[in-house]
């Protein structure tokens, strides 16, 4: 029986000129979004590649140079293109793409695409995810607002019910047709994004299986979103008697839950957990650095100094051995200060990211009123473009900074002990400094962080389907 309903609904859809025009417009929007995304990511990829090459070339061509001077010159950590950023660029444009791995300082990421872009380049945010998030609900509303109310107006509902068809069966058939149509649009879109990502794959990209899992996760999230919106649309269409009333109600729901609430939730989160201004953050961090630096004669300082020397020589120190070691004291001081400051930086950045996490949790709470908020979180997370992905990159870059600076300081400590403080490392030394090999977070860790958002979508879906099921069973008078 359901097959007949599905077949007839599809037949009507195919013969409806409005549906075909609508499909053409949506198709065009998606193609535009995909080509914009692809073009942006290609440009970014080329820039990253060129910048990485230039950075490596400049570092390796320093010639004979004092290692500490080289530590200030240092390297850049380039954030690779996220796995599915052509689908959803997320917050990547606003968080910077390169971190300068300088001695003494944990620098923030710089070169934000949004900052560098001229006004007209705001199209960079014209992403597939953005189009889908806004357009999917509209499409569902346009396909479904008259599903039941239209049957009522035409009089066909009474005839169908009178023929022995249950409202539940009818609702199920219409639910399947609308969801399947939109799911097909999703499948095409996500598949194209995966193909695009494969074209752009570089050494930092996740494996093919990881990419496919990300695609499947995106499909599941957007698929759930489609189910939720289809259920809401059919509920409204069943409860009202006129199609135009259903359309008005659904457009109001769209404006509130899809357009207004996601933006409002970001403002509320920022009000409740304000992000520190750049100068406030650095003032506070500088004060903490000052406060946490132990006195050079203290036991704490001596303990760090011993750890630094032992790590450099690769063994434990005998008692009283430190004074007699042939080691560059300046290099030791640099590394001790690096180790002490690094801990303070880690705490300051952890607090900063903790604040972002609190903002995200508050938005999560508000997604009880709008599934779009939970979907935005999931879309960015599975595309690898959310704040968690940036935190991972920032922490990995800091690890690389610590490794590079330590290597340069140890070069100075161990080889610059000839009495001069201006030790020059040989020209070939720089090539022994390892490149930044960044591996993006796996899909497993993304799922662990995103499960609450997925659960919220599941909850919405469950409520929608149960309400539709009950309405189909209990509505008796027509």
């Amino acid at each position: 029986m359901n097959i007949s309903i599905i077949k007839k609904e599809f037949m009507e859809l195919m013969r409806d000129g409005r549906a075909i025009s609508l499909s053409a417009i949506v198709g065009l929007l998606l193609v535009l979004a995909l080509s914009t995304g692809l073009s942006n990511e290609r440009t970014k990829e080329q820039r990253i590649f060129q910048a990485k090459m230039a950075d490596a070339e400049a570092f390796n061509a320093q010639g004979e140079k004092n290692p500490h001077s080289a530590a200030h010159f240092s390297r850049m950590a380039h954030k690779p293109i996220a796995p599915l950023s052509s689908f959803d660029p997320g917050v990547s444009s606003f968080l910077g793409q390169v971190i300068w791995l300088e001695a003494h300082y944990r620098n923030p990421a710089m070169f934000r695409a949004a900052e560098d872009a001229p006004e007209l380049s705001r199209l960079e945010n014209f992403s597939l995810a953005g189009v889908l998030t806004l357009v999917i609900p509209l499409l569902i509303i346009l396909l479904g607002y008259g599903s039941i109310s239209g049957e009522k107006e035409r009089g066909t509902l009474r005839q169908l019910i009178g023929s022995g068809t249950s409202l539940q069966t009818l609702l199920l058939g219409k639910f399947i047709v609308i969801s399947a149509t939109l799911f097909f649009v999703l499948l095409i879109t996500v598949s194209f994004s995966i193909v695009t990502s494969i074209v752009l794959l570089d050494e930092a990209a996740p494996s093919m299986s990881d990419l496919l899992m990300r695609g499947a996760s995106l499909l599941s999230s957007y698929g759930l979103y489609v189910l939720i919106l289809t259920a809401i649309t059919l509920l409204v269409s069943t409860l009202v008697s006129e199609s135009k009333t259903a359309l008005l109600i659904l457009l109001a729901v769209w404006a509130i839950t899809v357009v207004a609430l996601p933006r409002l939730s970001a403002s509320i989160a920022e009000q409740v957990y304000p992000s520190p201004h750049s100068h406030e953050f650095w003032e506070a961090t500088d004060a903490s650095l000052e406060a946490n630096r132990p006195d050079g004669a203290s036991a704490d300082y001596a303990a760090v100094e011993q750890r630094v020397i032992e790590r450099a020589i690769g063994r434990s120190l005998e008692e009283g051995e430190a004074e007699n070691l042939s080691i560059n004291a300046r290099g030791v001081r640099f590394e001790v200060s690096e180790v002490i400051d690094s801990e303070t930086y880690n705490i300051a950045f952890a607090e900063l990211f903790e604040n972002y996490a609190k903002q995200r949790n508050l938005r999560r709470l508000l997604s009880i009123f709008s599934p779009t908020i939970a979907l935005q979180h999931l879309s960015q997370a599975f595309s690898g473009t959310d704040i968690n992905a940036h935190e991972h990159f920032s922490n990995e870059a800091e690890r690389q900074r610590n490794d590079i600076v330590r290597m340069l300081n140890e070069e100075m400590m161990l080889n610059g002990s000839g009495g001069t403080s201006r030790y020059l490392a040989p020209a070939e030394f720089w090539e022994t400094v390892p490149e930044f090999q960044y591996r993006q977070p796996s899909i497993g860790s993304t799922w662990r962080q995103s499960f609450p958002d997925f659960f919220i979508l599941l909850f919405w879906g469950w409520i929608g389907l149960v309400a539709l099921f009950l309405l189909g069973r209990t509505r008796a008078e027509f």
Partner: protein
Amino acid sequence: MSELLLAQALTKKFQSKTALHELNLSVRRSEVVCLLGANGAGKTTTINLFLGFLKPTTGAAYVDGLEVSSNLDEVRKKISYVPEQVSLYPSLTGLENLDYFVKLSGKRQPHESYLRELLGRVGLDQIVANNRVKSYSKGMRQKIGLAISLAKDAKALLLDEPLSGLDPSAANEFSNLLRGLADNGTAVLMATHDLFRAKEISDRIGIMKSGCLVQELSPDGMDQASLEEIYLEQMRNSDETSG
């Protein structure tokens, strides 16, 4: 129980207005019963209560012995319904509409030749059947509606003013079809304003006014003028009462 359709003290109130008041009515197998009455007399409410579109305030409607509101699924398998305006899907052809409604009424994959035979029985041109319904006249849509009912092969057929707007020839064909169905065992309950057709095909006629069945009569041996006289007399009584 020999009655296929039975109303026992059937009452329906909409807030303070009583649309139907303690109706007692039965329609047996092979019997055609017509309900006559002015607009708002309770004819459509009666049909809606038998179809389960409305729940009675008091009393009960039965179809083949089953109380309607508590056995909706079973009841709807036993009845067919032709409304005043047969509503179809305008972007589908007559044949596709018929196919859809027949499948949804529980028939599995009706063969096209069977559907065409049904259309032939209700007198719809085979070529017209392949046209989209948006180009159909009211009479053509009514014929599709009747074909849907025929396909269901129901025990009882409920019709709500199916003849209104049909030209005399189409109305005559339609009436003959109904009589034929009844002769083959179907119980037919039809609400109509058409006294002439009612007299032609009915076994019994019920005259309704203000939600009450005021008179039940057999048209056998009665001429058209007499029926009209009785009907108008009942309507005048109604006017005097309300006046």
